[in-house]
């Protein structure tokens, strides 16, 4: 159906190609997965397929063919008919891509109006039908809502419904599930798979998430620095990739089957500029030999619809078995003494009503975002905290650092010393012990300060260092996060995402903390960068004996770094214990559902959809927090009584009314 060959230029200093001679073909009903790291040009590529170039981009050469049309030569009228009709986009961030001032119904109706001949009344019915097809509860109600009144998953479904309105033959999906919870992600992906199958729609699925790509794609194309490096059937690419980049990428993904920090793919992609006379991956390739730097390899046909851009064949490269090298990370022995103790903590964001403030009574109507959470962090260990968005993970961190005082319970350091509720009343030494590494390094580093100033600030504050020594120490710290001292005088704007996160880590470690709180530290990063950051964190832990409270929604990442795990739902603990026990049966029903929803880059693994992806705004008043979504709910008891803690071996605890034997199956 398509034959695409497009190159794009940035004007200015000559042609700066973002895409270089990319060509591939998508057949009807086929799904092509397009993977690559950020900056590899995959989104640009997806948009060129609609004949769309972002502002400032110019086509250098080549063309996109769709049906009988050339997307770059078609007139405005033809393009408007094709876009949204024959070829539809499902955007990365539906929340921002839906027009905020129009209702969902109006927006789907518009697509119908433009691309079908239905009468207004038929269209109205069709809107509801489409919303039903994407399995929206109460489609007629949703149609009257504005986008902001829906959850992320619902917005994404609406975007799918809107794309389907034009009865497309090709669907372009630009990271459609990035940023969604695992359970939501699985729902959307299964929906797309079914739709593609039942309607014979071809899909181009752009994502950096190989797990998601593995689930939906028939074929996979790997994009590196603007060129295709490998394209072929997905089973073949996932199971025995030939290109060293693909192999590195697959190895850098944390897996559920082992507690080890994933392999690190060294280096960074080359700048896009300039002519390319050698293999783009050569500087990072462990198998690079002379021919790699001498000439740019061609896309070599290695089988039926299988091409690889490498000078060497698989058997000519290093032993591919090195991919599954066993863990190098030594597990900590029995942890020494307790460092942080959190006891029966409850946190609420709603303020006390005036009346209850007067009477001093507990306000019954208040919603407790976090309730009855207790755990202990020992010296030098890593506690993983997992749960979907809204499960109270970050709220607990905020309470520990003293930004959000708990309304009940207490938090103690080193067994006895209670921590003040508010950070401004804590003594300096106490602040120093607990440091925070933020989720988003873009917004947590002051863009106007240099790296030296950023890292020196805690040195000056906690150790009273002078400027000169602080700078020297900052350089040392940079070295420990694998950055050279050249970075000292740069500002955050001049750093890549992974580099910024390292600076954030260096800043936290400048205080020489006993406990570092890591709030989704890798979720904004590419897998290969994530692997590097995880590796760094575990090395620092070994060297400095710091304990981590590692919050993440990504179970595989937690699996690879944590010693013990807390599973949270609606601010209540569901399950806790050593990582090996929590990640193996028996599961709490919620943990089980999360585990089975995980997508891994393994074509043989099928995720299971067990629970609805409905978002609960508040926990139930009484009983088990998970009662409304539980797939194994035994009966009324769950609505009335809080589930008891069931003690299993090794401090593994499950809060559920069901017996471990039942949970095991």
């Amino acid at each position, binding site marked *: 159906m398509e034959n695409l060959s497009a190159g794009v230029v940035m004007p200015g200093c000559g042609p700066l190609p973002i895409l270089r001679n990319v060509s591939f073909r998508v057949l009807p009903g086929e799904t092509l997965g397009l993977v690559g790291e950020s900056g590899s040009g995959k989104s640009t590529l997806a948009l060129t397929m609609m004949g*769309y170039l972002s502002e400032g981009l110019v086509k250098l050469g080549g063309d996109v063919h769709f049906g009988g049309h050339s997307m770059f030569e078609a007139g405005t009228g033809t393009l408007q008919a094709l876009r949204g009709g024959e070829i539809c986009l499902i955007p990365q961030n539906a929340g*921002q*891509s*839906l027009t905020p*001032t*129009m209702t969902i119904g109006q927006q789907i109706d518009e*697509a119908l109006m433009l691309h079908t001949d239905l009468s207004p009344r038929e269209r109205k019915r069709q809107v509801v039908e489409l919303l039903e097809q994407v399995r929206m509860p109460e489609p007629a109600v949703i149609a009257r809502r504005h986008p902001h009144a*829906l*959850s992320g998953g619902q917005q994404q479904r609406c975007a799918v419904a809107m794309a389907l309105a034009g009865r497309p033959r090709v669907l372009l999906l630009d990271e459609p599930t990035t940023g969604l919870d695992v359970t939501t992600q699985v729902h959307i992906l299964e929906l797309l798979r079914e739709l593609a199958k039942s309607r014979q729609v071809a899909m181009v699925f752009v994502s950096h998430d190989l797990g998601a790509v593995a689930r939906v794609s028939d074929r996979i194309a790997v994009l590196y620095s603007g060129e295709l490096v490998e394209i072929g059937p997905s089973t073949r690419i996932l199971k025995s990739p030939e290109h060293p980049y693909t192999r590195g990428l697959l190895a850098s993904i944390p897996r559920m089957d082992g507690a080890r920090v994933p392999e690190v793919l060294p280096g960074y992609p080359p700048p896009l500029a300039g002519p390319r006379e050698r293999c783009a991956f050569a500087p990072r390739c462990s198998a690079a030999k002379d021919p790699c730097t001498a000439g740019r390899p061609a896309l070599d046909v290695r089988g039926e619809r299988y091409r690889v851009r490498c000078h060497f064949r698989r058997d000519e490269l290093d032993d591919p078995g090195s991919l599954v090298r066993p863990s190098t990370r030594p597990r900590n022995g029995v942890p020494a003494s307790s460092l942080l103790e959190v006891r029966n903590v409850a946190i609420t964001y709603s303020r006390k009503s005036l009346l209850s403030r007067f009477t001093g009574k507990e306000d019954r109507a208040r919603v407790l975002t976090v309730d009855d959470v207790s755990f202990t962090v020992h010296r030098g260990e890593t506690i993983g905290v997992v749960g979907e968005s809204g499960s109270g993970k970050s709220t607990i961190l905020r309470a520990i650092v003293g930004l959000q005082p708990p309304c009940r319970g207490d938090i103690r350091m080193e067994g006895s010393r209670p921590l003040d509720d508010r950070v401004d009343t804590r003594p300096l030494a106490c602040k120093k012990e607990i440091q925070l590494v933020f989720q988003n390094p873009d917004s947590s580093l002051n863009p106007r300060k240099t790296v030296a100033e950023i890292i020196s600030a805690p040195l000056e504050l906690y150790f009273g260092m002078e400027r000169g020594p602080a700078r020297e120490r900052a350089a040392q710290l940079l070295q420990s996060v694998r950055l050279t001292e050249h970075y000292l005088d740069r500002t955050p704007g001049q750093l890549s995402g992974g580099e910024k996160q390292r600076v954030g880590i260096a800043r936290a470690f400048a205080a020489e903390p006993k406990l570092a709180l890591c709030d989704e530290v890798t979720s904004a990063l590419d897998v290969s960068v994530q692997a590097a950051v995880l590796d760094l964190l575990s090395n620092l832990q070994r060297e400095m004996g710091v304990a981590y409270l590692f919050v993440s929604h990504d179970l595989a990442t937690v699996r690879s770094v944590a010693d013990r795990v807390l599973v949270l739902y609606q601010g209540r603990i569901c399950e806790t214990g050593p990582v090996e026990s929590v990640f193996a049966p028996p599961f709490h029903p919620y943990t089980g559902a999360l585990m089975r929803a995980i997508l891994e880059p393994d074509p043989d693994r099928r995720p299971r959809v067990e629970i609805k992806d409905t978002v609960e705004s508040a926990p139930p008043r009484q009983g088990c927090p998970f009662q409304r979504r539980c797939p194994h709910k035994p009966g009324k008891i769950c609505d009335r009584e809080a589930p008891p803690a069931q003690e299993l071996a090794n401090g593994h605890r499950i809060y559920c009314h069901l017996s471990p034997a039942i949970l095991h199956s």
Partner: protein
Amino acid sequence: MLKILVRRLVSALFTLAFVAVVVFAVAEALPGDACTAYLGRLAQGERLDNCRASLDLDQPAAKRFVHWARDLAQGDLGNSLKRKKPIEEIVGPRFRNTVILGTVAALIGIPLAIVLGVFAGVYRDKIPDFVISGVSLLAMTIPEFVIATLLIFVFAISFQWFPAVTILPTDAGIREILPNIVLPVITLAFVMTAHILRITRASVIDAMHSEYVKMATLKGVPFRRVVFRHMLPSALLPTINIVALTIAWLLSGVVVIEKVFNYPGLGTLIIQSIFDRDLPLVQAIALMFALIYIAVNLIADLLVILLNPKLRSQVSGEGG
């Protein structure tokens, strides 16, 4: 919604009280009082004392303020010291004149500003944008009295199309006023258009770069429909507040322009009353200005809440 309204009204009351105190203090701080201004060179000795006694000016300032505030609370603005008439009677027709001038200028300026702003934003960095943005920058940087003087020079003195100044009785009818205010209206429209235009252009440019406009384009929506259905409703929200500020500015007596054209509005009145040290009149007009600003901004904020689906549902609780 009601809660917001009540909260805003209460805070408006505090603002007004604060303004009253400040205005009173400032007027007190001016050298001289109504009697010295009125009597001029004769202001000394017994004559001055008598005059002050008759106007209660011999009382301590704090006491006078309490009196004034008490009367104000009962709806009595008091009498003008100079004109010896109730203030309502003096301010009323002047305010009407200011409203006429402001309304005409707003009716011309606001639509013009929005249309040009949208146009410049949509065709950003193309020739129409350069022309529109250039002229509006000029209009913002040149002081309004310079523009007014230029207009007078060209159209009143060289061409003699319009009168240079308005020579009208304060209570002239609208039909008489309109032909006389062409030049002040042009000046006002010119200045206000520039401000609104810049804000409109900036927010249109923002919206044109948004993901939802890109999405609409990729949905095959024709360009004009993208602009009118998808982009404008969100892009125009920020302009509501700046339009409100402009209206408040127009209604609270555009002092300089009224003075240049000698227009019998509130602006010329407050200048005159300051010269006369006519304290109750100054206070009354200043309070009125404050009231206008508060009212217009409150209306704008409520309008933004009504028009923005996101804020609307936060207030009424539709969905999350």
